[in-house]
């Protein structure tokens, strides 16, 4: 007998990090229909950006869109404003900015991996990954002066220069992190009980990835070659050894692998950046008020982040449009849920690495 059952997941659920509600319609265990409600934490930041705050204060405002990718938010806004003011940054500024973005990617990916492990029922792994993540956050604290809200990016550069001692610490910490990631790589690919929860679950094919315009690790796990680090020339990623990580599977396992290999790649990049840091100023004076329109895309840990800024030479901007990665990923997520078992839903959801405070802004 086929019976349709409605099961909600969220807005508060033990497997959720952030408030989102999925309405599942299931035939026995199989999910057949999905509705998503994402607007629980809407704060009206786009409106506040044009009515409450002057453009010089906005890097701090947009950094509050999201805790995990605060640095990419303030950086993309700053890049957009700098484009409008025709500002030329020095290579040292670019390198320091890239360093922080990549460190951010490392710890954000580790958070996602730990939650995927936890939602698959492997709590010891969750704690292990979280413990390994802590030194990376300490590094960011040492560089920027704060653990979560870095407020490191300034319009015209970065607020602090990196000291030689901190640079040494970065290399030492990342060297210590690398074997841990390699061990995780082995664990995630060879552990039998994890493979039951991961392999062939939450499939997204290449075709579907193209149809639903998926982004970030979700798309790369399905074999779609898209990475804004490759597609944008705002930051010189080729110089520091960036490589696109691609997987074919499209399931949770493939997403985990993409994240793990990206962490390894980011570790290499960070070390390259610190060891080949060019000389120069870290903060330059910038004059004028933003006028015109600029679009900036940047690869946040979860995928492509886009800022569209329009100004008319006044203290207040005309429009700040924030397009976050999870926002574009929702249609694909809904599609992936269809046809999978309800019991797998938490693990699938964690593997998307959804960021609801970004989505609802």
């Amino acid at each position, binding site marked *: 007998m086929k019976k349709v059952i409605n099961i909600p997941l969220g807005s508060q659920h033990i497997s959720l990090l952030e408030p989102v509600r999925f309405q599942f319609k299931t035939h026995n265990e199989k999910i057949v229909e999905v509705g998503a409600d994402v607007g629980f934490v809407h704060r009206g930041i786009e409106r506040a950006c044009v009515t409450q705050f002057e453009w010089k204060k906005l890097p701090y405002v947009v950094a509050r869109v999201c805790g995990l990718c605060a640095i990419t938010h303030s950086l993309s806004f700053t890049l957009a404003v700098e484009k409008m003011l025709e500002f030329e940054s020095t290579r040292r500024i670019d390198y320091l900015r890239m360093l922080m973005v990549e460190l951010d990617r490392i710890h954000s990916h580790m958070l996602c991996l730990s939650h995927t492990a936890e939602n698959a029922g492997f709590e010891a792994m969750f704690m292990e990954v979280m413990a390994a993540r802590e030194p990376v956050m300490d590094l960011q604290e040492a560089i920027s002066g704060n653990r979560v809200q870095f407020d490191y990016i300034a319009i015209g550069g970065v607020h602090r220069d990196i000291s030689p001692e901190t640079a040494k610490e970065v290399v030492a910490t990342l060297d210590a992190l690398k074997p841990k990631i390699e061990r995780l790589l082995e664990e995630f690919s060879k552990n039998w009980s994890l493979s039951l929860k991961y392999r062939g679950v939450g499939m997204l094919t290449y075709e579907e990835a193209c149809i639903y315009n998926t982004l970030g690790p979700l798309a790369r796990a399905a074999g779609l070659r898209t990475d804004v680090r490759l597609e944008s020339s705002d930051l010189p990623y080729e110089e520091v050894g960036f490589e696109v990580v691609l997987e074919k599977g499209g399931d949770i396992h493939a997403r985990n692998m993409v994240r793990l290999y990206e962490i390894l790649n980011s570790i290499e990049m960070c070390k390259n950046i610190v060891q080949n840091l060019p000389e120069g100023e870290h903060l330059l004076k910038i004059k004028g008020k933003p006028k015109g329109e600029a679009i900036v895309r940047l690869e946040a840990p979860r995928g492509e982040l886009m800022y569209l800024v329009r100004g008319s030479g006044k203290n207040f901007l005309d429009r700040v449009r924030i397009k976050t990665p999870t926002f*574009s990923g929702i249609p694909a997520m809904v599609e992936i849920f269809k046809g999978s078992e309800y019991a797998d839903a938490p693990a699938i959801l964690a593997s998307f690495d959804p960021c609801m405070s970004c989505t609802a802004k």
Partner: protein
Amino acid sequence: MKKIETTLERVVKTIEEFYDRYEWHFLTLNGIDLDDGKIELQWIFAKYGAKDETVVFYCITDYETEVPSIVKLIPSAIMGEREVVDMFGLTIEGIEGKLYLSDDSLKTPLKTMGLGGCEV
């Protein structure tokens, strides 16, 4: 960034001719309030694997005219369209807003910004 002007009648056809799902990806639909009761709608695309290639189709319209939907062409456009309906109070064919706003919040928070305040 390449900007191409279009009109509401032509926009679906233009995008249909332009869009190849293996080559381009759709970023979002964006609205910008233009102070004089008009709104600029932008359909933003970016090319896979190419450096800095973004194409923006834009058209200027008023708030009353119904905007055609491109969800049939690009299913992921639904999020952007719902947001525009929500934030500006536009009507897009077959699209319901209610993405972020609840019953007791501001009605169209990003509309008529330049005129000072919005409809509550």
